[in-house]
């Protein structure tokens, strides 16, 4: 059998089984077994022993549970709610004010939470109700929340970037910093769109009324919790108090102390936050183990190398291949979970991009922006599902998808900007060496 036959069979089986609804871990695991047993043989068996312990015993991966826990604690201690009330008191009175508030909040909380799903929960559990209550258009509300939520994995910290960095040996610190400017640019695109809608169709985004200066001043004290959390996490990295991995622990501790000060910390709340974190961390890192095995086995069999050479030698300019790859990721993104896409495809795609002369750091950010779309694109759009599960019943799936549509186009525009202007990604990391 030639390498491409193997690859096609593997990809076919992967997609077919996954579409049926078989968990991705099981599909990848079965393929690992088939490849090792039938293609590599006895010497490959040890991979099943060495990869799980060898890869998960990695200090850098500690950031995954720690940052997920921070997000969980923020929701369970309702820090997000207080922040929203403050922001609304100050800018809610402007055209589209509440929606802009939501965007602003998404960007701030993206700097605390490690994942887009977590960010969507943080934003959605507060903003959905508030926006609908004040007469905001259902679709604008939905789009604004799912899109803002997706910033969670582009603005650091980012669990997906950690997975990408670990799989492809790219500096996680550089990836984190590389996501900052694209994250802000995309956030600015969202805000611009919201303002445009609010001005052209004032009935879709009514300004809040009845906000007095006394409400504004009184709301200010509520924001100390978020400011403290952001200050501790960014400050700890900046002053050298903690490494980027360790800072998740300081964030979790701070969030717990805030919850204590509000008298909101109790065993039931802590238990729920811990169990949710164990679940999310577990499924991400189990899939990572299976994917690392997959990548290492393909490397051992020479498939990755052969594919890299072939794709690099296609009669297409490098940017043509880059566009094709992005198209592939968009299609996969409509069907699969972003963590699984990064795990399965990046070990194959990154060598190709490197061979074509693209930097793996820059491609990582392109990949991440593309994956932001994956959180929104139906039929499998995680943020759509999350919003549906927390929104009131009058907001249907059709409202959510149609509401997300303009934001998907904006994300495509953002993706184009990141590809056309690599400096957006590479400038900040280059200043840190």
């Amino acid at each position, binding site marked *: 059998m030639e390498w491409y036959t193997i690859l096609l069979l593997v990809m076919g089986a992967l997609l077919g*089984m*996954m*579409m*049926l*609804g*078989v*968990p*991705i*871990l*099981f*599909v990848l*695991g*079965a393929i*690992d*077994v088939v490849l*090792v047993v039938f293609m590599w043989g006895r010497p490959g*068996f040890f*991979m*099943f*022993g*060495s990869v*799980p*312990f060898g890869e*998960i*015993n990695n200090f850098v*991966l*500690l950031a995954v*549970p*720690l940052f997920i*826990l921070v997000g969980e604690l923020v929701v369970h201690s309702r820090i997000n709610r207080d922040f929203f009330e403050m922001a609304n008191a100050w800018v809610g009175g402007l055209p589209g004010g509440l929606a802009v508030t939501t965007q602003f909040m998404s960007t701030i909380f993206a700097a605390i939470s490690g994942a887009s799903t977590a960010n969507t929960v943080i934003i959605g559990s507060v903003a959905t109700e508030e926006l609908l209550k004040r007469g905001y258009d259902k679709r604008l509300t939905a789009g604004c929340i799912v899109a803002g939520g997706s910033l969670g994995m582009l603005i650091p910290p980012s669990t997906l970037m950690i997975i990408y960095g670990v799989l492809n040996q790219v500096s996680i610190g550089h990836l984190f910093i590389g996501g900052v400017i694209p994250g802000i640019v995309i956030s600015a695109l969202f805000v611009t769109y919201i303002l445009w809608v609010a001005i052209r169709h004032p009935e879709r985004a009514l300004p809040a009324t009845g906000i007095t200066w006394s409400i504004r001043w009184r709301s200010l004290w509520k924001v100390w919790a978020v400011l403290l959390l952001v200050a501790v996490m960014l400050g*700890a990295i900046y*002053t*050298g108090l*903690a490494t980027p991995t*360790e800072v*998740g*622990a*300081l964030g*979790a*501790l701070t969030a717990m102390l805030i919850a204590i000060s509000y008298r909101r910390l109790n065993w039931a709340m*802590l*238990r729920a936050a*811990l*169990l949710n*974190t*164990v*679940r*999310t*961390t*577990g499924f991400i*890192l*189990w*899939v990572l183990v299976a994917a690392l095995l997959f990548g290492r086995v393909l490397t051992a069999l020479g498939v990755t190398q052969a594919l890299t050479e072939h794709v690099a030698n296609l009669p297409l300019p490098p940017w043509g291949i880059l566009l094709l790859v992005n198209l592939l990721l968009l299609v996969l993104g409509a*069907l*699969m*979970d972003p*963590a*699984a896409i990064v795990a399965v495809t990046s070990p194959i795609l990154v060598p190709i991009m490197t061979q074509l002369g693209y930097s793996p750091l820059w491609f990582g950010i392109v990949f991440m922006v593309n994956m932001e779309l994956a959180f929104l694109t139906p*039929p*499998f759009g995680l943020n759509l599902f999350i919003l549906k599960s927390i929104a009131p019943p009058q907001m249907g799936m059709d409202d959510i998808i149609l509401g997300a549509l303009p934001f998907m186009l904006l994300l495509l525009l953002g993706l184009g900007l990141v590809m056309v202007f690599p400096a957006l990604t590479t400038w900040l990391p280059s200043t840190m060496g």
Partner: protein
Amino acid sequence: MKQPATPLRLFGRLAALVERVNRLAGLGAGLILLGMVGMICREAIGRYFFDAPTDWVVELSGFLLVGIVFMGGGYILQEDAHLRVDIFYTRFTRRNRAIVDLIGYLMALPFLGFLEWQSALLAWRAFGYSERSMIMRWPVYLPELFVPLGVALLLLQMLIQIVRAIGALRERQGG
């Protein structure tokens, strides 16, 4: 009076036990995480404010992460939290869902079997050679045991789900 031990009742008791153990393992993983938050804060704060870094935090927290991930495996399956594409799955009938579940379990069993066998072997060799960790010179087989233990918990949970899925199939056939 004790109820007669029919196979069904026995299975029910066994399943309840396994699920209980897995819930406890999941909570245990959560508590380890909480401990890890404390350890890492101790390391960062001690190092920065008191010039008192530790030698044990980095090595121990890497080992404990293995515990958090693998000890939670059975619990994750119990909660049906493994990532899946559910475009069609949610629209399937109960029976078809049971079929897809069974396919998935059959695909996973050899994989989990290999993980169990080879990771147990890794720990066994480390034990045999008295392998020590790099910094603290702790026995390495102890953290390595998290993997075969966690995979075993997942396997047990899976066996129960398999029996249930088969039950769901037969139920429909009967009715």
